[in-house]
């Protein structure tokens, strides 16, 4: 971050809405007075506190687009035997207060400051809940207007795991430079132009060819094995390593 050093304070946010996105992923709207000033791609830390003072902290990407509202959206996948994500799925309710701090992260952000990186074509590659910071970028592009070419390759297990399917499909149908490709790893391809296999170099090349020029930046997000596979596929399809930025969720 280029801001002058300042302490990131914990703030109390209120869960203002909860929605089921897929069988394993739910959306949580967190509202705080004054809202959150952030850039697409950044995350927040959340802190849960037990009655005896024990705390647990985890990071979650912001899925909503930067804007004037008081709320940010998180998309949380329920991890089996997890400590924090099952709490959100099974216990948290609208009206509950959650401590958050952020935004955090000054690297996995789009657009960047410099002219070319801010306006050149960009490719986004998401695995499962790794869509969160990338859909923030997609939404930011849609809201802020410029027709920057952007391709999203979104890998899911089954068609029912596609987060925000209608929203993404509608954005593609606008034909203003946003391209969506789905890779369904355990099921049939969803729509023409989608894939029914795990990400590989051919798939990456196919998606890159849907952009009018080579991307100036690639953002890859998901579990670590997914990010490794996706980054390797992008490298094998000819992208330079320093174009690719990764965010790894664990695993």
């Amino acid at each position, binding site marked *: *971050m280029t801001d002058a*050093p*300042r*302490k*990131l304070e914990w703030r*109390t946010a209120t869960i203002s809405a909860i929605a089921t996105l897929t069988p394993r992923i739910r959306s949580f709207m967190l509202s705080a007075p004054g809202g959150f000033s952030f850039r697409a791609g950044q995350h927040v830390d959340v*802190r*849960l*506190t*037990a*009655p005896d003072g*024990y*705390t*647990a*902290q*985890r*990071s979650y990407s912001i899925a909503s687009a930067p804007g004037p509202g008081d709320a940010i959206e998180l998309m949380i996948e329920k991890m089996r035997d997890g*400590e924090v994500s099952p*709490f959100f799925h099974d*216990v*948290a*309710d609208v009206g*509950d*207060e*959650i*401590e958050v701090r952020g935004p*955090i*992260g*000054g*690297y*996995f952000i789009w657009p960047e400051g410099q002219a070319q990186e801010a306006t050149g074509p960009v490719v986004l590659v998401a695995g499962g809940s790794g869509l969160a910071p990338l859909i923030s970028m997609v939404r930011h592009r849609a809201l802020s207007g410029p027709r920057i070419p952007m391709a999203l390759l979104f890998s899911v297990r089954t068609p029912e795991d596609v987060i925000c399917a209608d929203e993404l499909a509608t954005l593609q149908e606008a034909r203003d430079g946003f391209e969506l490709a789905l890779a369904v790893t355990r099921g049939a391809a969803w729509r023409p132009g989608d894939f029914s296999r795990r990400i590989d170099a051919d798939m990456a090349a196919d998606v890159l060819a849907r952009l009018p020029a080579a991307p100036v930046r690639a953002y890859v997000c998901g579990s*670590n094995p997914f990010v*490794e596979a996706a*980054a*390797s596929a*992008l*490298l094998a399809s000819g992208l330079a*390593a*320093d174009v*690719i*930025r*990764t965010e*790894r969720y*664990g*695993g």
Partner: protein
Amino acid sequence: MATRGFTGRRPPPGERERLPPGQYLTADFPVLSAGPTPQIAPEKWTFTLKDGPRPVKTWDWAAFNALPRSKLTRDIHCVTKWSKFDTHWEGVLVDDILADAGLVAPTPFVLAHSFDGYSTNVPYSDLSEGKAMVATTFGGQPLHPEHGGPARLLVPHLYFWKSAKWVNGLQFTAVDTAGFWELRGYHIYGDPWREQRFTGD
């Protein structure tokens, strides 16, 4: 502020005291890096010790591996909240690197550099007297590229981003110089026990 309905999954006694605030124990070894994993062949590997802009000595893979080797078993703590206990490392202590180069620390500040352009600053006093090494094995195996292989810096008592992966040099600097993550909002020192995650913590 207690969170309604949260009880938490507490670490058992014996673990709890070893976990810095806000951390949880994991048995896996998660990966944190900002880009693709570089694949660096040993023939292409070099390590350079610098005093400011001046290179003092450069080792290739064979020469580096001929330096005195040491083992460290330590708990490690990542700023993304996971900690891992009793990790086993082998490599060359920073003390032994300086000794081989005949260099006495010229300044109190060091910037570690990596093959992928990453850098991170660590005070020399956190690298000396057996506290830190350039590690080439983890758990008795050559260090995997995902975890920074062929070689990474290991400064186990600071948050793990200070343990620069794919390290290719240490540079003494005249003043404390923020590295890659430190310029992007992460703490200049990064002590997990004082929970120094971000600037100002």
